[in-house]
Each structure stands twice: as C-alpha cells, then as structure tokens.
C-alpha cells in the first residue's frame, strides 16, 4: 500500500485499488490541485506521509481504506492551509450535503438548498 508516485493510487498487483468512488475522487482532487499549483506534489507527499505515520502510530490497519482516509485528512489540511477555503467552510458544506441527501426524494438529483452555497 505504498505507491512510488504519491499522487498515484495504491496497487495490489492487479491494478489500482479503489474500493469506493470517493477513493478515486480524493486522488483526482489532489492531482488537479497540484496541477493548478495550489500546492506542490512534494507538499502533498510530505503531508500524506505524515498522516500515514500518525495512522500507523495509532495502529490503524494497513488497508486501502486507511490509506484513503489519510488522503482526505491530508487534502483537507492542505486546502485549508494553501487556499481560501477554511476547515469551517468544509465542515459547513459537509453538513449541507447531508441535509440535501436526507431531503431529496428518489429519482431527483441531490442539490444543495438555496441558502447553502
């Protein structure tokens, strides 16, 4: 579970491992933000390495899930530090999506309410 390129997904010998769509989305976001020069690949690698060391220190299992949870933590930290989006804004948006999912009936796209953006 340790890809040589920090922006590449972990592999299991049979190709990349994404068990859930969000696993892919988080790396897609990291890659796009590096290419848009909000932070560098090196910053990403160092922050992800630190997040993984913390996970190891608390004896988190060495799985793809742990890897991607570290990737989210890393991305949230870098976005808050290097862009105009704060951790508070991320938390508020996460709660807005939760409300939108709970309020949207089947067959309709889940969208944020008018005051939530």
């Amino acid at each position, binding site marked *: 579970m340790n890809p040589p390129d920090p922006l590449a997904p972990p592999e299991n010998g049979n190709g990349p491992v994404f068990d859930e769509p969000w696993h892919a989305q988080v790396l897609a976001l990291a890659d796009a933000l590096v290419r848009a020069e909000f932070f560098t690949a090196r910053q990403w690698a160092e922050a992800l390495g630190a997040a993984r060391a913390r996970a190891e220190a608390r004896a988190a299992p060495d799985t793809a899930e742990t890897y991607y*949870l570290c990737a989210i933590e890393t991305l949230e930290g870098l976005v808050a530090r290097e862009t105009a989006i704060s951790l508070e804004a991320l938390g508020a948006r996460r709660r807005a999506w939760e409300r939108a999912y709970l309020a949207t009936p089947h067959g309709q796209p889940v969208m944020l309410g008018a005051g939530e953006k």
Partner: protein
Amino acid sequence: MSTFDSDEAARIHQELHHALPSEPALRVKALESLVVERGMVASETLDNWIEAYSEHIGPRRGAEMVARSWLDPDFRARLLDDAGALAQELGFQGHASVHLKAVENSAQVHNVVVCTLCSCYPFSILGMSPSWYKSAAYRARIVREPRRVLAEFGVSLPEGVGVRVWDSTAELRYLVVPQRPAGTEGWSLERLAALVTRNSMIGTERDLSPHVKGAA
C-alpha cells in the same frame, strides 16, 4: 394500484435510494463541490481522471461470478435462479438490501441493462458505473432504439438475435452473463474472469475475446 400515496412512495425511495453517503464520501463531496464552485479546478478535469480509472473503481465480483458460471453448471443454475442469494452467500452483498437478478445471453438473446429513472446500479458487484450509464441519452434511447444504441457501442446483432432491455429499480438490479468465448477451454477461473469486462455485464458489449487479455 388503486391507492397511490406519493409521500409514502417518496419515503420508501429515499430509504432505498438516497441512502446517506458514508462520512468520508460526504467529506470528499464537500471538498469537491467547494473547489469546483470557486473555479479552482474544472469538474471536467476531475471527471477525466476518474473515467481513466473507472474500470478499476470498486469490486470486480461480477466478473468472478460470470467466470464461475462458465466453469460450474451447478453454480450457473444457482446464479440464474437467485443471484441475490448467491451474492449474499459469497459475502458480496452491498449495504443496501437490494435484490440481484442474473440474465444470460445466448445465441438467440442479448440482454442489456438500464435504469430509466435515475442510475440504479449494483456497485457491490460491478464496481463504479460508467458515466454514460447515468446519461439522460442512454437512459432514454436504450429502451426506444436498443439496436441502434448497441451499434454505437460496437455491438452489431444479427437479425435473429432478440434484445431484452432490463430496467433496474431501487429493489431489483441486474447482472448480464455474457457468453463464454470460444478458444478458452481449460482456462482457470482467474484467467476467465479477467476477460469479463464491465460493459459486457451491463450488456453494451457482447462478444468477449480471448485475445484481449490473458491469452499470451
């Protein structure tokens, strides 16, 4: 149905369908929506990245089930009889309590799956759905003109082959069982499973080739 209670229907649909995404999925959604909305990243850039990996996103359990059905007649019978029970037995059940039905292609019949209402899809069996599966064009056209849509995917069906279009619902999802390609006699389960593409299990591909992968 004589009494249609739209609130009740909406409630059931909501329970079955817009199940709240997991906590990490919501955090990623928050990140994605904010960076896209503020113009920091184009959503097409993210879509292209995901699409490039989409065959690898999620489990490939369907391919394994199909390959086993080619090798083991008893397994095949059980798959066609009750794929949902079989998936559950194998520990492949998704978190939603959804039934799965396997539909088998033959020399006379080609099966293809759609969700006309939204984009119901057996993620726990097939992995991530391709972006075209969710498109309004595919959902509308595959029902109206299946042969033409299949031709656009490169599937040309002989006159004698009928097409069955299966419309997924929140309660019932489908797995197409493609035909085993000729020239694969004696192959292992693993080697056969590697031939089974995602599209063949949705039905937008028909003839699997033993020469694409694993034949060397």
